């Protein structure tokens, strides 16, 4: 792999003065987005009294974490992980098994344990995969996720096999009625939409706000990391491993750290997903999920954290809500959704390999050289040019 990309990670200005200005404007757009988005999401329930939609957004919050955690490894270092579902499912199943066999463990601790086991899996996979790249890494990660699916069959009595496990200890349950319920409803929903819900439905709103809070923390942390000095180091690994090593980057440590961080974040999100859904099943380990994460990241533009995050909202809202309302065909044949996304992904790869969000951000930030885009060049790297 001798990639020579003119799209360097650091803002390499095309013209000396305009470049820096552009970078600043772009940063401003990013910052505005970063502040506006959480606020909008915080107030979202006030204006939408559609609980289905709210639940879909809660799910989308979780997928944002899936995509962002994938991005810190694959989008940044270029070690493209084709089996992210392995980490997600591992965290989710850990939480579910804990809730089945150790009901005494509370939710937060279960999440913590899920996160750590996923991180351990990250080490277990990361170490043998350190030297691999491109196709080797892709197929290795793909088959590890496949192996986990088979493990659930082998330990069918514990994991439920293809039925999965139900009754995972939920984030919270029940409805608070009475004055307290009304108070909470008014606080969260405002007077506008609070129209006789008969109390505060904890489950929906708590899952919404919990996922939102964890998502903001995780994405914020990953972005701080990604846009900081360490992110630059991670990118340098993608651009040219040898040069990075020659420049004194401790390759092994950085690559493994990215692997473990990605795994831990995915495990946390997976565990949270299990608690929000109340069930775990094989779809949390399947190739379909791994690809969906890649689809999201590719739509959003890998290597920018914010891109995949926005991509997740678009894809999950479509998948969980709007497509069902667009045509009954999608209700009867849910598999068509992933099918259409795959088709779209292929088209995006052929037409706009940098994803959709980075070019858009760039447009917002002002016209200019493509080197200003926050998006990485994941799909463009690895060119076979000798």
């Amino acid at each position: 792999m001798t990639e020579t990309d003119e799209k360097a990670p650091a803002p390499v200005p095309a013209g000396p003065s305009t470049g820096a200005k552009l970078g600043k404007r772009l940063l401003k757009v990013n910052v505005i987005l970063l502040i506006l988005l959480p606020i909008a999401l915080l107030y979202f329930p006030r204006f939408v009294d559609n609980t289905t939609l709210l639940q879909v957004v809660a799910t989308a919050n979780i997928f944002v974490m899936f995509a962002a955690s994938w991005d810190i490894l694959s989008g940044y270092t270029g070690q493209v992980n084709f089996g992210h579902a392995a980490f997600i499912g591992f965290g989710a199943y850990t939480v579910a098994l804990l809730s089945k066999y150790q009901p005494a463990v509370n939710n937060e601790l279960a999440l913590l344990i899920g996160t750590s086991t996923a991180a351990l899996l990250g080490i277990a996979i990361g170490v043998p995969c350190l030297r691999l790249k491109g196709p080797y890494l892709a197929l290795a990660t793909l088959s590890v996720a496949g192996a986990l699916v088979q493990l659930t069959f082998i330990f069918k009595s514990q994991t439920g096999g293809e039925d999965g496990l139900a009754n995972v200890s939920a984030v919270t349950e029940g409805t608070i009625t009475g004055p307290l319920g009304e108070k909470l409803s008014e606080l969260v929903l405002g007077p506008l939409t609070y129209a006789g819900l008969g109390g505060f439905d904890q489950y929906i709103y708590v899952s919404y706000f919990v996922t939102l809070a964890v998502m903001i923390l995780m994405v914020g942390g990953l972005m701080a990391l990604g846009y900081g000095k360490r992110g630059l180091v991670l990118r340098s690994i993608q651009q040219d491993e040898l040069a990075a090593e020659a420049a004194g980057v401790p390759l092994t440590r950085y690559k493994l750290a990215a692997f473990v961080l990605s795994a831990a974040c995915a495990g946390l999100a997976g565990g949270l997903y299990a608690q929000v859904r109340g069930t775990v099943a094989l779809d949390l380990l399947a190739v379909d999920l791994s690809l969906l994460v890649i689809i999201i990241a590719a739509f959003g533009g890998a290597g920018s954290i914010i891109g995949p995050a926005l991509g997740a909202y678009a894809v999950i809202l479509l998948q969980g809500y709007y497509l069902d309302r667009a045509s009954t065909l999608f209700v009867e044949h849910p598999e068509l959704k992933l099918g259409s996304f795959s088709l779209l992904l292929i088209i995006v790869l052929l037409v706009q390999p940098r994803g959709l969000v980075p070019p858009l951000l760039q447009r917002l930030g002002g016209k200019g050289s493509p080197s200003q885009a926050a998006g990485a060049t994941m799909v463009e790297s690895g060119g076979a040019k000798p």
Partner: protein
Amino acid sequence: MDVLVQGALTSAVIALVAIGFSLVYGVGGIVNLAHGSFFMIGAYSAFAATEAGAPLVVAAVIGILAAMLGGILLERLVIAPIRHQEVAVLIATLAVAILVQSGVQFFYGGLERQLPGFVSGSVSVFGVGIQQTRLLAGLVALVTIVGVLLVLSKSPAGRMVRAVAEDEEASVLIGVRPERVTLYVLAIGAGLAGLAGVLTAPYGVLTPTMWLLPLTQAFAIVILGGLGSIQGTVLASVVVGFLDRFVAFNVKDGDIKVGLVTVAVILATLILRPQGFLGKVVR
């Protein structure tokens, strides 16, 4: 004895899938994650043809042709435009695999299907009773593989393929068109995988996710044998095939553990000898 005979037959069938996978990588540098889908397309097309009333032999041919057509379409529409972007090809072909999966699920549902056998009953080979369909599958696969190897080593077309695999730029200099060769090799590899799908359909089951195991096995084989090395591929198929049957017969619930063994093989090889056991050192 059981394991030996059955292992030999299984090896032949999975080698059929793996050879195409390995050839396509060797020639075009393309790792085609949709390779398992050709296996599935072959099996399902043959199934569809028998449903429509076609005789079995015709159905088998239809299955192979459908897989080849799939290979040609894949190369022309998806791979060719992004051929030199390794990671993009990986993602795009995985997307194609999922696209095919959801298409199959749309038309046939998630239910398991089965093709009627070409022959029925069982015979005894070296004192081991085998279903005739399995025997036929193994023998046809074996003959095909020998044929492919002969073509590769003796014919002018095979020389061209090997030339491109060896050095793409140099092959251009002697008048070979690598794009063309890639297309042909992909189509033939797809056909071979389709043939394997048709052959195993009578004793395997047809599901929309049946593409993953052959893909993983082909990958394990190719890693074990070294990406791009044909002799390595054939040898490794034997190893994986025997392991497959050994586990299926001797371990409790062996059938579902087969995939795990494959992954273990992959990881062990990657740790011990990343370039495979007969592969060239890349980079």
